[in-house]
């Protein structure tokens, strides 16, 4: 039963990892950008929520009303001010710029908030749970996280395949130059995609911060989890990121069952095993 419980809890944590991964996947899909600072942006969103809650007294989840639009606006500006200037055939400049951004965010957060860890509190929602069967309790908050991940991915999926904006995203993804010729302002398309990505980042940040302590240096770890979920699920497949997140969560849960020191390691090993056996992931995208 202990193992069964580890698997169930792993599945639920997988929802959080899918939230880490969804934004990463969207950005890569639209503009072939891998943002090394993605994890640090998640942590920055968590700090933003912390500041807003301390200033206004809003409940933890309600802070999203402010965190989400602020993050989205910041994403839009970040893309216009920095990333659009370095996107091109060479993948090196955007990668190195995002690496620099990651260093800036980590040390900026350190200067502003010290190295002490913080946490957001959500009262009864955080601690409450119900018994699924003897030995397996399901927390309301992990369940809400998982449901949010499903809703977020469903929303992204609908946006991507059934709206005019999504059509513009797909066109730009297929061939940015032709899209430009057809009258799409790709710079604004990219900025909009980054804004949406940052909205998901805000969700991920707040849920992360309610679930566990956070400090300025936990960004890279979140980036790696998100990245692993993307690759396990299959590049360019949004539902795949959810499956990838769940696979990662379960692997970590089982690893922790063996030995607490094995939790993160087991996730990494599952990822490497996937790379060895199915390098294109569980659900690769239809076309290269």
């Amino acid at each position, binding site marked *: 039963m202990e193992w069964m419980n580890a698997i169930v809890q792993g599945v639920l944590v997988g929802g959080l990892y899918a939230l880490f991964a969804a934004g990463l996947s969207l950005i890569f899909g639209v503009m*072939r*950008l*891998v943002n*090394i600072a993605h994890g640090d942006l998640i942590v920055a969103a968590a700090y933003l929520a912390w500041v807003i809650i301390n200033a206004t007294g809003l409940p933890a989840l309600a802070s999203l009303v402010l965190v989400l639009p602020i993050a989205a606006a910041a994403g839009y500006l970040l893309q216009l001010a*920095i990333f659009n*200037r*370095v996107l091109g055939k060479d*993948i*090196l*400049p*955007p*990668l*190195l*710029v995002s*690496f*620099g*951004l*990651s*260093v*800036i965010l*980590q*040390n*900026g957060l*350190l*200067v502003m908030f010290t190295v002490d860890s913080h946490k957001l509190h959500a009262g009864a929602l955080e601690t409450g749970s119900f018994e699924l069967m003897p030995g397996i309790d399901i927390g309301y908050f992990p369940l809400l996280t998982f449901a949010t991940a499903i809703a977020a991915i469903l929303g992204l999926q609908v946006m991507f395949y059934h709206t005019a904006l999504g059509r513009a995203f797909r066109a730009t993804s297929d061939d940015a130059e032709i899209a430009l010729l057809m009258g799409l302002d790709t710079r604004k398309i990219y900025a909009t995609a980054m804004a949406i990505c940052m909205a998901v980042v805000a969700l991920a940040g707040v849920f992360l911060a309610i679930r566990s302590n956070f400090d300025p240096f936990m960004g*890279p770890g979140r*980036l*790696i989890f998100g*990245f*692993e979920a993307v*690759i396990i699920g299959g*590049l360019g497949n949004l539902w795949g990121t959810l499956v990838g997140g769940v696979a990662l969560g379960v692997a970590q849960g089982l690893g922790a069952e063996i030995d607490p*020191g*094995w939790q*993160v*390691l087991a996730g*990494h*090993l599952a*990822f*490497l095993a996937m*790379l*060895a056996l199915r*390098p294109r992931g569980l659900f690769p995208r239809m076309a290269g």
Partner: protein
Amino acid sequence: MNDTISRFSRAAYIAMVAFALIVAALVAAPWWGSVATERLIGEFMVYLALATLWNLLAGYAGLVSVGQQAFVGFGAYVVFSLALLAGWNPLFAVPVAGLTCALLAIPVARLVFRLQGAYFAIGTWVVAEVFRLVFAQVSALGGGSGKSMPAGVVKLIAESKFWREATIYWLALALGVGALAIAYGLLRSRLGLALTAIRDSETASVSLGIRIERVKLAVYVLVAGFTGMIGALFALQKIRISPDAAFSVNDWTAIVIFIVVIGGIGALEGPIVGAIVYFLLREFLADLGSIYLLILGALGIVMMLAAPKGVWGFVAGRYGLSLFPTGYRVQSGR
């Protein structure tokens, strides 16, 4: 009609002579400098070597790794394992560390080469994290908190403090200059020609019959082996090891990337200029603590936006200068 093709320019000859003089002066440092000077130059050599190697990977082979700390840390742990568990003289363990890392790089490459571009970068990082977490589990090597080298083992390097410091310093110098020499020799070789072609255009290189994957693998393995020796040197310099320090992404990758970006990516002179700039900045700004790192990050971004080829690229483009010529130039005979 009597144009000539040459590799060396007058500037390059002068640079060669100056370089030889500087190296000669550096070899004698134990007699004219203090221990602090030796250690500072030693650390400079570590970064010069790492930056030169990373430049080969990212600037030429298109392999942007953010996981080179995997090989730094592994090399360091090889030295510690052989010294602590098998009683080796740590100096003899240095080449073994290099060889082990080169061999290890082959299966690692088989995995991470399946990822493209930026995903390759994060894949290499995951591998480094795996190494870090695995070594944190090995209690014989100190587990997560690490271990120091016993005095008896340290004495194996050399009896007196003077010779011990000097030996480690010369090793650092040899690896720093060696990395430059290897990169220079490599780029002037057949493999280097292929590498430069890959740097300029992968598609064109394939169509000319260059087997990109093999060239990339060769460079990756070579760089990993050399990086492992630098890790071994790091173990000797610090005589203390812990997984977090040995596999630190900030120390072994972030700073190295900064050096290459500031100095100039895709040119041999770049990492030298970058390392000098980095050490100057550090001397003046390190007291600022995390603000100093913030400045480094911002400087890196500004450099990438304003002068993507770095300080050296700017100078070289303006004055047509090449101190370590690896290409050929046509000189018009009027």
